[in-house]
């Protein structure tokens, strides 16, 4: 049974002000109903200001990154009418398509729109917060080109990567909203709303496909309807059938003249666009000869990819790539931050890797320094100096540590001599501890063996 899946994805744009007024967009940091004005609360007599150019440019950039054609005809802003407490004017403004006929990761992009977010309504308390009202959104509509929840998930991951690449969507995350259409051969199309993460989309699709298959197995009809995804229970629940579908009574907003996007504007924005992640990945493999897995991970974040290219100018590319994939990513994931947020610079990485290459610090020290970089936000050399982590060169100090370790652990020495070779590793560990990791482990092993065997 063939499964068909399509998406409508909404993501907030990273503008300073709202779409039709000058109220700030940092709605999460502000107490309820403080980031508002007459316009975004729909006061009687208020009129929209000219549409926020920063938001229009963002949508053009995103549409171009999704390989869309930009619409050259007048683009009307429509009023979509519906009655809900979070909608202060009784309509939501949404543009006609700005981009059309795009493609990403084998999925056709039908349309890219600009929209305004409604406020936030809490049905349990009955409270409405208009701080979010009027925050600009991009809406991306795909063709039903995906055929399994896994494929759908891969597409969303790729889309999120591309959106982040443009630098035009909000960075803090958690603002994405997804509606999905899913149907099984022989059944009607079902729309699922209220999904707000990639994982949620995956689970909703998994559940919904099973539900539809079960219906069909029992000879029941899958009817055309809109369902809601309930995050807490990981199920979908019927909202309304086709007959109950709302008529939004779209009209061009008489308060807003249509947008006209010029060829110059498109060229100007094109010039600022980064290379797409999948193209970057390909180039890294060819240009730097690094492993394809490394290239994929490095290209997952634009700033990280840029940093890699800087580092690879000085450091052997595969070393740089391995270090970024293993160590940089480990530290970022541990802290739950992006490379951009970490404050780590290419210069830091170069300095650190050079210290390793010049045998001035051990690998273990380098890893420790790596962990400290996001917190210290200073150069590796300073961190090493501050913590006294420089590799011990004077053999006497290492020798002293070896002697101490041997004296303190007669049992281990005995074990080694009686044939338990791994007991020596324990002693190496003790020496490393005494020298706070600054000794060269290979050297220590050699010195310990000499001493124990010569005993």
């Amino acid at each position, binding site marked *: 049974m063939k499964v068909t899946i399509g998406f409508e994805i909404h993501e907030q744009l990273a503008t300073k002000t709202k779409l*039709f007024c000058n109220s700030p967009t940092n709605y999460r940091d502000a107490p309820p109903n403080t980031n508002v004005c007459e316009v975004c609360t729909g006061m*009687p007599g208020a009129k929209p200001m000219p549409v926020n150019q920063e938001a229009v440019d963002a949508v053009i950039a995103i549409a171009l990154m999704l390989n869309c054609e930009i619409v050259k005809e007048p683009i009307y802003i429509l009023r979509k009418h519906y009655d809900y407490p979070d909608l202060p004017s009784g309509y939501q403004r949404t543009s006609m398509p700005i981009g059309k006929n795009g493609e990403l990761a084998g999925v056709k992009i039908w349309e890219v729109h600009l929209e305004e977010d409604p406020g936030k309504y809490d049905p349990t308390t009955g409270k409405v917060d208009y701080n979010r009202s009027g925050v600009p959104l991009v809406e991306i509509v795909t063709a039903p080109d995906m055929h399994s929840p896994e494929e759908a998930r891969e597409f969303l991951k790729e889309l999120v990567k591309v959106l982040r690449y443009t630098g035009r969507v909000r960075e803090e995350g958690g603002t994405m909203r997804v509606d999905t259409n899913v149907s099984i051969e022989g059944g009607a199309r079902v729309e699922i709303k209220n999904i707000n993460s990639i994982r949620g989309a995956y689970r909703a699709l998994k559940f919904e496909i099973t539900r539809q298959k079960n219906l069909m197995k029992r000879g029941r009809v899958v009817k055309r309807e809109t369902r809601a995804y309930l995050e807490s229970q990981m199920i979908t629940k019927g909202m309304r059938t086709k007959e109950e579908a709302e008529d939004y009574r779209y*009209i061009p907003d008489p308060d807003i*003249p249509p947008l006209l996007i010029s060829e110059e504007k498109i060229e100007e924005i094109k010039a600022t666009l980064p290379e797409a992640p999948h193209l970057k990945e390909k180039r890294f493999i060819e240009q730097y000869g690094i492993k394809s897995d490394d290239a994929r991970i490095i290209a997952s974040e634009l700033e990280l990819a840029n940093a890699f290219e800087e580092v690879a100018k000085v450091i052997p590319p595969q070393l740089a790539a391995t270090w970024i994939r293993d160590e940089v990513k480990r530290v970022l994931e541990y802290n739950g931050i992006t490379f951009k947020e970490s404050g780590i610079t290419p210069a830091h990485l170069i300095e650190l890797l050079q210290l390793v290459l010049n045998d001035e610090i051990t690998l273990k020290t380098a890893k420790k320094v790596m962990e400290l970089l996001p917190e210290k936000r200073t150069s590796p050399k300073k961190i090493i100096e501050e913590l006294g982590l420089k590799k011990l060169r004077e053999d006497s100090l290492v020798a002293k540590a070896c002697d101490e370790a041997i004296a303190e652990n007669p049992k281990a020495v005995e074990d080694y001599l009686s044939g338990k070779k791994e007991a020596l590793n324990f002693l190496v560990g003790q020496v490393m501890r005494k020298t706070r990791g600054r000794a060269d482990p290979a050297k220590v092993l050699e010195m310990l063996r000499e001493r124990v065997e010569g005993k």
Partner: protein
Amino acid sequence: MGVIEELQSGALSAEENVLRFLEAIEARDGEINAFIEVNPRAIEEARAVDEKIKQGRAGKLAGLAIAVKSNINVRGLRATCASKTLENYVAPYDATVIERIRREDGIIIGMTNMDEFACGSSGETSYFGPTQNPAARGRIPGGSSSGSAAAIAANFADLALGSDTGGSIRNPASHCGVVGIKPTYGLVPRYGLIDLAMSLDQIGPLARDVYSAALLLEVIAGYNPKEATTLRVSQQNYTSKLSADLSGYTIGFAKEFEEYAAKEIIREVKHALAKLEAQGASVVEVELPSLDKALPTYYLTVFVEFFSATRRFDGRRYGYRIEEVCGEEVLRRIMLGRYISQKEYSGRYYRRALQFRSLIKKEMLEALSGVDLIAGPTTPKLPHRIGESIDPLAMYAYDLLTVPANLAGIPAGVIKAGEVGDVPVGIQFHAKPLEEQKILNAMYALEGGRA
């Protein structure tokens, strides 16, 4: 002009000026019902202006009392739209036109009565009761800026603001025998004007004479960065360019006007045109063959836009859900708007209305291309008696000659041409976009101003 000079010379203080209007309102507005609310701080504000006059730093409107239609936000006063829906809505901000009036030291004397949500052409649909025509007692003052026109006619204020979507300034100006101007769409900021039909609404002045109408217009006109439909027009100076010399002016008269307007009204209009010819203008015939399409085009547009505009009055913020408390005419427009904006009908009605609108606009601009002005009647008939029952279509028909200017987005002005019996009749002038000066000059000439 007398009052303006007296105020500026100090012969009359702003306080005295405001006080005499407040007294007149107190004494006579019980009969006229021009005001819904007077500004309790008017005297206080006048005193502050008197200080500025003394210091020689007062603005153009210093001390003039200005009545404001109740669909314009004036901070601290109720913008009720003459509806129970907004009965208790106290405006929390000033409309841009009000900011501009305050900057020039005009004093808001009060909020005027009107047809509910500007839906009407008679002044009878107000939740606060009908307004009397001070110039023709017993008759309607016209609408929807009924209170603003009546306040001027009854001498309750120096100047008034109205709004005009399909004639709501010009219709009552004609019936009450005062001057009224509907500016070019986008010339005067709409920010703070509560919507009837957003693509047609314009705020404009009402006054007893052309000079003061021009003065108020130049204060409120001009580019407003706060709205998207504003025109990029700099500060205007109509008063200094006022001239009654019409030599070189060609004025068009459309023969279709005679089909639609009563004979006695046409007679007064032609009489006025003859006076203008005497002042140098030449009168020619023009054609407006699509005039018959203007009314349905206009009303379909209004129904849909008004339906959309009223969705915010859902009962959650302003006390009442509009459909539950509004009058019959407002409800009719909302229901019709809801009906024709449905997905299955929008192609048949709303889209067609937009197409006809382009056609009418093209035709008006073509007719204007060979002339400076098109002059004609303002309303097809004389105002009816208050309380006389007339059906909705007959009421809509009042607007037949005023809606083309809104559909085309062009300026139009009305001034008294004469009287039929004791009832004033206004002549209407249309001009090309942003040629308000020509309208003002023609009206100035008719008024008998100096050349």
